[in-house]
């Protein structure tokens, strides 16, 4: 069971959180200008790395805030936690 550090509430058990998948996927400013393929890429294509992954979580049972997490998808280790809008820190190690 993951232990996730909410940037506001502190460390809480995974069931308090809601997973949001890949972080830093900006919604296109003008979708109508995109080709079907580019739009499909935004809607459906997400990174799925084996290793360090920048992902979003929401502390839905707590402060209800979305935030970003750098996590290793092999070791499950949480490497960093940072707020929405902040740029991902360099992954430690």
């Amino acid at each position, binding site marked *: 069971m993951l232990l996730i550090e909410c940037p506001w509430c502190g460390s809480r058990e995974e069931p308090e959180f809601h997973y949001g998948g890949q972080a830093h996927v900006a919604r296109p400013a003008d979708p109508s200008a995109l080709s079907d393929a580019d739009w499909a890429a935004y*809607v459906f294509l997400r990174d799925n790395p084996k290793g360090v992954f920048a*992902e979003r979580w929401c502390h839905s049972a707590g402060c209800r805030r979305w935030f970003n997490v750098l996590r290793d*998808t092999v070791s499950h280790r949480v490497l960093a936690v940072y707020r929405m809008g902040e740029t991902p820190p360099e992954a430690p190690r």
Partner: protein
Amino acid sequence: MRYSIWSLARNALSHHADWPRQWRSPDPKLAYDVIIVGGGGHGLATAYYLAKEHGITNVAVLEKGWLGGGNTGRNTTIVRSNYLFDESAALYELSLKLWEGLSRDLNYNVMLSQRGVLNLAHSLQDVRAGRRRAEANRLNGIDSDWLDTAGVARVCPILNTSLSLRYPVMGSTFQPRGGTARHDAVAWGYARAADARGVDIIQNCEVTGIRRDGSGAVTGVETTRGVIGAKKVGIVTAGHTSVLAEMAGIRLPIQSHPLQALVSEPIKPVLDQVIMSGAIHVYVSQSDKGELVIGAGIDSYNSYAQRGSFHVLEHQTAALVELFPIFARLRMMRTWAGIVDTCPDASPILSTTSVPGLYINGGWGTGGFKATPGSGFVFAHTIARDAPHPVNAPFSLDRFTTGALIDEHGAAAVAH
């Protein structure tokens, strides 16, 4: 050597000293017509049907570890074909038909046990969805009935069909031809049969890169055992589809998640069907060894560790004990997890790609085992003809661009 009661008797006399290898362990050749990356059930089946149906025998299956060590050896062995949409029904029914002749075809007993599969309904919504699916199956020629609560109780008397259940059982779909099979035997049977037709099965050989020529077409793969040339490469690496595709610069609509399962200590036979409940998240069957084999939904987060969160097991066990109150004192003996590659529409990808000579078979989510024979059959066709078989044409990658998704979420809340 053909397996039979006679060969068994003969070998008993020699204390089983003369059994031949079930498959060779060859060194990789310099090049092959086709390389299949991934020595799981789907990959081995693909190689087998390439040889059997298309006469392509200069084929290698590259496995980074041991045959069937991925999801083939980690699933809960459920086999069924009662999917909602025509496209899915055609694919899974083709598969089930192949299952029914597989032991004989492979001369290897995969222990297919058609004990019947029930998908329980716990709400009016479930009832509507279940009925819709059962009716669609019937018109698609798939055996599938709708049972009311009394009918469920008749088929599975130990199931808690009382109103005391938090979400009472309001009915169920029932596919009598559904059931289970022995997962390891499927990999081994296909491996042995493919090997007999000349396919090279190469274990402990991890693919680390995909080679392409100036035109972008595939020319071979880089592996931990050197570079191996190939005109065509098929990626069949459930749990690592994205990683392999990325080697060829392809991004896929796939996310990888842990899926956990567990077994009880063996007990005398008490459960004669496969019982699945999407609404309260558990499914269970009893193996020939007597263990209750239990699974549920996936863990929420992306992962490549074959490891999940404990609370998921607690929830599915709570659901199990509610559905089967007499199981309460039985004990969980072993747990494990696999990595499942999920697609946005809960349907697989069986497709050619933008890279000439590269083909992808993946994204089966939690339900790939049941599709093993059919998946191999149509994927072999796709590779041999460089064009999809009519059955897997709808499962091409371009569906995400056109929007022609095959969204089985509704029908496959637990897609097993």
